[in-house]
């Protein structure tokens, strides 16, 4: 049996994702697309699915499908972020004001596209995402500790032990944090 899914299997697998899987994909898309100019969360999901359909990204047979999609979104977002940050144009500079100051009869051929979609929220989410999260939990010491643990990739029982909490305390804090993170939404 092939190591990766065929295109027909990719379609069947994506169609077979549960409602909860799809919601997780949407949540992660909002986080990964934070601050990207060229990809909205929906665009990001679409690009990840498309890459799996075209075969640009493989779909390992033994991997959990929702995880494959999340990884694909992460890669697509990273590529897009690199392109936006390292490209010749800094897309994060709002050039609306610049465009307005140009003379009307200027026929120099310069085309300026106002980046009006660069909202402060998007900028904060990408470039200072961690600062935004720290702000989000500034009033709750437990959540600050939990964020610190997650930044070290420690979760679940291991995190509870690390933080010297019992698992119930961990679960309660986790629920609070997930709810708060959901308040940072992509406009």
């Amino acid at each position, binding site marked *: 049996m092939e190591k990766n899914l065929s295109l027909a299997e990719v379609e069947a697998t994506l*169609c077979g994702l549960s409602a*909860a899987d*799809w919601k997780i994909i949407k949540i992660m898309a909002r986080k990964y697309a934070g601050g990207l100019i060229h990809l909205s969360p929906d665009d990001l999901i679409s690009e990840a*699915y*498309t890459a799996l359909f075209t075969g640009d990204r493989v779909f390992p047979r033994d991997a959990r499908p929702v995880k494959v999609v999340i990884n694909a979104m992460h890669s697509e977002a990273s590529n897009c972020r690199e392109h936006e940050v*390292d490209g010749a144009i800094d897309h994060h500079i709002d050039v609306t004001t610049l465009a307005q100051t140009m003379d009307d009869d200027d026929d120099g051929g310069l085309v300026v596209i106002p980046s009006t979609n660069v909202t402060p929220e998007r900028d904060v989410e990408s470039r200072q995402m961690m600062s935004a*999260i720290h702000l989000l939990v500034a009033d709750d010491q437990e959540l600050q500790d939990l964020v610190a643990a997650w930044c070290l990739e420690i979760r679940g029982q291991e995190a509870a032990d690390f933080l010297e909490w019992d698992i119930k305390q961990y679960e309660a804090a986790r629920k609070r944090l*997930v709810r708060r993170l959901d308040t940072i939404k992509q406009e």
Partner: protein
Amino acid sequence: MSHPKQTQERDAFLKTFAEELLAMPDSEILDGDDPAALRKENMTMVAKAKATAGRRRLAAGRSGFVASQSLARSAQDVSVAMARAAIETAMNDDQYTLAARSLGEMSDEDILRLYHQLERLKAKKDAPDGNQ
């Protein structure tokens, strides 16, 4: 530009966040949302992505076809005299090594065949990852 440490921290946080979400029971993830509506959204996205992938594959296929067609056409359109002149030029070019053979002894067919080979070599060399 993102500071590398910030990026690492963000990636680690998001990775752990995703793992937490994946470990949560469906009821907690759904949190009262309508599963049927969510599934419908996913199906719509699958259909959209499938169509996009099809269009991209078609476009890639067409551009490959157009490129090879244009190469073939340019090679076909050349006259024997022009092909002979191009080969003579190539013989003086250090980038190509042609067997020492008098062009005058070659048939028109051989001249055109050699010219086509030369064109293919040039096209390969000019490709972004082409080698000499």
